[in-house]
C-alpha cells in the first residue's frame, strides 16, 4: 500500500473527528492517532529506503489538474522528524493543557498543522506548496492566539500579517512562473532554467516570501513575540517545524533549479542575511530577561546557520556543495530536536518557578535538576558543542566553508557559536545560584519533563549516528552520488 496519501489524509480526518469530540476526549484521541501517523511516517521512510522515490497521484488524476505526491529521502526524513517532534510535543501538551481553556482549540489546530506540514513535504508543484504554506500559516497563527491575552493576540496579529504578506509574495512569484512557463511542477522548472528575466523576478518574489516566513534577519521581527509568548508546546512546534517548512520549499526550489545558472549574488544576499541573523539573534538572545524569549531569539540565530547553505552550494565545487548539504540537513534536524526540547524544558522551568523571568531561576538547579538538565543538553547541541548533532553539523559547515574558500563565514561560525554558548550559560548560571533559598517550586508532571528530555537528548545522540539520517537524506536527492 502506498503510504503517501495517508500522510495527508489521516491528519486531516483526525482534525475533523477531534473537532467533533468532547474536550476531554481530544487529548487521548489525538495521542492515539499520533501513534498511527508516526507509524505511517516511519513506514514511508522504510519504503523510501527500500524502493527509492515514491510517487502517488491523488484520486488518480494526473497533473496539472490533479495533485501529485512525491517522497524522496528528504521528504521521508522530514515526515519522520515531524512525527517525532509532534508526538512528544503532544505528550507534553496532554499534561500541560489538562483543564486549561486552551485545550479545546489546541488539538484540532495541531492536526491541521500536521496535515499542512506533511502536504508541504510531499507536494510536487508550486501551487500546492502555496496552499500548504497558507494552511500552515493560518493554523500557526491560531495556535499562537490560543492563550487569548493581549500580548499573544498582538503577536498573533503581527505573525498573521507577516505570513499573509509572505505567502502573497510567493503567490505572485507562482503566477509569474506559470505565465512564463505554463507549468507549475518543480520538475519542469528544472528543464526551463531561469534564463528569462520574468523567472528571475518570480524567483526573487518567492524567495522573499519564504524568507519572511522563515523569519530570516532582518525580517525576523514577528518571531520572538509569537514564539516566546505562545503556549509551551506551541512554541516548540513553531520553532522546531513550522519555520522549517518555508525553508524546505526554498531549498527545494534552489536545488531543483540548475545550480550553475542561479544568480550567485542572490545566494550571497541570503548568506549575508543568515550571518546577520546568527550574530544579531545571538546577541539579542543574550540580552533577554525572559526565558522563553531568549529561546525564541535563539531560533532567529539558528535559522541564520541554515541559510549559509545557499552561498555554499551556488557556484562552488561539488565537494563543498555536498558538505554544505549534509551540514544543513544535520543542522536542521538537530535544531528541530534540540529547540523543541529546549522550549519544552523552558516551559517546565517557567512552570516550576512560576515566573517567566530568568532572574527567578535561582535555586532551580537543586530542586528541578531534570528540567534544567534537558535545557542544558539542548543548549549543548544548539551551541554546536560536542558531542551533539549540532556540533557535527557545525563541523561539516566548517569543512564546507574551507572547501569552498568562502572564508567570510568563518568568523560568523566562530562568534555565533560563542554567543549561543553564552546565552545557554546565562540561564544555567542563574539556576546554579544558591543563596537565601526559596524552596517553593511547583513540580511539573513527569511526562512533561520526560518529553523535554527525550527530544533534547535525541539531538545529542544524533551526534553519534549522524551518518544514518544523512544517508537516507541522499536518496533521490541532487546529492545522491555522495561525496
Amino acid at each position: 500500500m502506498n503510504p503517501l496519501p495517508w500522510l495527508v489524509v489521516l491528519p486531516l480526518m483526525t482534525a475533523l473527528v477531534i473537532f467533533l469530540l468532547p474536550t476531554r476526549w481530544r487529548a487521548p484521541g489525538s495521542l492515539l492517532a499520533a501513534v498511527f501517523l508516526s507509524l505511517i511516517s516511519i513506514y514511508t521512510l522504510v519504503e523510501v529506503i527500500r524502493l527509492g522515490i515514491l510517487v502517488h497521484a491523488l484520486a488518480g488524476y494526473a497533473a496539472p489538474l490533479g495533485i501529485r505526491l512525491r517522497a524522496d529521502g528528504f521528504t521521508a526524513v522530514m515526515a519522520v522528524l515531524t512525527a517525532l517532534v509532534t508526538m512528544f510535543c503532544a505528550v507534553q501538551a496532554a499534561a500541560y493543557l489538562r483543564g486549561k481553556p486552551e485545550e479545546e482549540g489546541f488539538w484540532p489546530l495541531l492536526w491541521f498543522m500536521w496535515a499542512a506540514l506533511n502536504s508541504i513535504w510531499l507536494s510536487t508543484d508550486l501551487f500546492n506548496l502555496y496552499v500548504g504554506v497558507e494552511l500552515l500559516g493560518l493554523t500557526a497563527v491560531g495556535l499562537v492566539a490560543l492563550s487569548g491575552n493581549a500580548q499573544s493576540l498582538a503577536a498573533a496579529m503581527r505573525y498573521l500579517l507577516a505570513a499573509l504578506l509572505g505567502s502573497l509574495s510567493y503567490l505572485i512569484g507562482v503566477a509569474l512562473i506559470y505565465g512564463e512557463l505554463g507549468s507549475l511542477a518543480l520538475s519542469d522548472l528544472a528543464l526551463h532554467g531561469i534564463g528569462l528575466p520574468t523567472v528571475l523576478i518570480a524567483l526573487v518574489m518567492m524567495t522573499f516570501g519564504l524568507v519572511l516566513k522563515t523569519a530570516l534577519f532582518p525580517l525576523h521581527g514577528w518571531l520572538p513575540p509569537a514564539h516566546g509568548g505562545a503556549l509551551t508546546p506551541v512554541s516548540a512546534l513553531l520553532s522546531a517545524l513550522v519555520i522549517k517548512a518555508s525553508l524546505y520549499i526554498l531549498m527545494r526550489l534552489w536545488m531543483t533549479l540548475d545550480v550553475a545558472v542561479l544568480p550567485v549574488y542572490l545566494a550571497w544576499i541570503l548568506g549575508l542575511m543568515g550571518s546577520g541573523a546568527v550574530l544579531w539573534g545571538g546577541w539579542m538572545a543574550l540580552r533577554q530577561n525572559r526565558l522563553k524569549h531568549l529561546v525564541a531569539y535563539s531560533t532567529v540565530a539558528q535559522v541564520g546557520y541554515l541559510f549559509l547553505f545557499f552561498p555554499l552550494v551556488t557556484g562552488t565545487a561539488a565537494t563543498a556543495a555536498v558538505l554544505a548539504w549534509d551540514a544543513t540537513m544535520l543542522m536542521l534536524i538537530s535544531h528541530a530536536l534540540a529547540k523543541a526540547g529546549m522550549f519544552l524544558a523552558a516551559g517546565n522551568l517557567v512552570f516550576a518557578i512560576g515566573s517567566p523571568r530568568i532572574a527567578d531561576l535561582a535555586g532551580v538547579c537543586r530542586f528541578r535538576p531534570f528540567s534544567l538538565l534537558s535545557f542544558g543538553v539542548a543548549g549543548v547541541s544548539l551551541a554546536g558543542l560536542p558531542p551533539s548533532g549540532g556540533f557535527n553539523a557545525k563541523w561539516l559547515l566548517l569543512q564546507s566553508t574551507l572547501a569552498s574558500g568562502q572564508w567570510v563565514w568563518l568568523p560568523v561560525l566562530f562568534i555565533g557559536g560563542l554567543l549561543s554558548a553564552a546565552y545557554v550559560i546565562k540561564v544555567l548560571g542563574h539556576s546554579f545560584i544558591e543563596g537565601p533559598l526559596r524552596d517553593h517550586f511547583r513540580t511539573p508532571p513527569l511526562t512533561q519533563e520526560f518529553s523535554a528530555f527525550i527530544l533534547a537528548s535525541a539531538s545529542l545522540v544524533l551526534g553519534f549516528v549522524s551518518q544514518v539520517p544523512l544517508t537516507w537524506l541522499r536518496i533521490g536527492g541532487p546529492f545522491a552520488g555522495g561525496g
Partner: protein
Amino acid sequence: MSVAAFYAWIGVGLCVLGLFGFIMHRHLVRRLLAFNIMGSGSFLLLVGLAQDDRGVDPVPQAMVLTGIVVAVASTALALVVFRRWFRVSGESILPEDV
C-alpha cells in the same frame, strides 16, 4: 496590448497599490483591506498572464478559485484575531514596542 496582458498589468497595479497601503497604514482593518487588494491583484495576474492565443487555460482558473478560498479564510481569521485584540486592548493598531 492584448486584453489578457491588460488584466495582468492591472493586477500588477493592484498589487503595488495594496503593498503601498499595507506598509503605510497602521490601522489593522485598513491593512487587511490592503492585503485583500493585493490578493485580487495577484489573482488577476495569475489569470491574465496565463491566457494566450490557445484559448482559456483551466489550470489558473482552478488555482484562483483555490486562492480566493484561502484568502477568504485568512481574512476571516484575521478579523477574529483583530476583534479579540480590540476587545482586550481597546486598540486598533499594533503596539510597535516589541
